[in-house]
């Protein structure tokens, strides 16, 4: 798994790619929680995720709940097939704000 973070004001953006599984998801979780500590709304781009298991989903849920407690926006962008499959399996595709692409959400400001 690879994690890239960047600022696209007003958002903090995390780009996850590769396999997000029990081995790598603790890093994804930490990156999400650290990003939320900046107090900025967070977008997590999943377009490069080739595999995600329940531990990856749990990291996203924890981030979403942490953001809500802080009154911050938390959105997912462009979940690729494997990531979208597990979000649907967990019935979370209707819970998370999901954007067609990172650019689409950023363009709306």
């Amino acid at each position, binding site marked *: 798994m690879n994690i890239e973070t960047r600022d696209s004001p007003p958002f903090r953006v995390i780009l996850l790619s590769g*396999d997000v*599984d*029990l*081995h790598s998801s603790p890093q994804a979780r930490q990156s999400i929680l650290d990003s939320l500590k900046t107090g900025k709304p967070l977008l997590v781009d999943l377009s490069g995720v080739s*595999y995600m*298991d*329940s*531990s990856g*989903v*749990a*990291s996203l*849920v*924890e981030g979403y*709940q942490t953001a809500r407690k802080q009154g911050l926006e938390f959105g997912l962008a462009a979940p690729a097939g*494997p990531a979208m*499959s*597990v979000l*649907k*399996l*967990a*019935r979370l595709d209707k*819970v998370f704000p999901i954007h067609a692409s990172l650019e689409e959400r950023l363009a709306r400001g």
Partner: protein
Amino acid sequence: MQPLLAREFPAYTSALTEIRAAVREACLRSGCDEETIAAWVLAVNEACMNVIQHAYHFAEGQALRIEVGLAGDELVTLICDNGIPARIEDLQPRALDDLRPGGLGVHFIRELTDTMAYLLPGDGWQNRLRLGKRIDTTGAAATSQGKEPA
């Protein structure tokens, strides 16, 4: 059962990539379609995660064994370990409207399999989880009643 895979793996999170690749390769030889294979790999991955997390508590030097095979039109996988046995309450899926991290693994396994059962200890393994799913090896996956494929 027609064996497709019978192998021990270290029960480490770092072995999950190799486990998924091995299960995927075995499923390919079974004649399953891609959708069924992806679902099965996820189900087996979740079961192995449970072994690593809950049976072995991430302890070093532990192993698990995976057997994949075909029994008629059923794709069968055994996941064996010698850790702490799962409790009945651990095998119940939680309500999905209870939005919280964790607890999704059993839900995933139940959704992606037709049968899930613990066998009696044997062959040197204390815990033997058997997962089964009817498949159509002519290329199209059998649809489980009311279940959404991953």
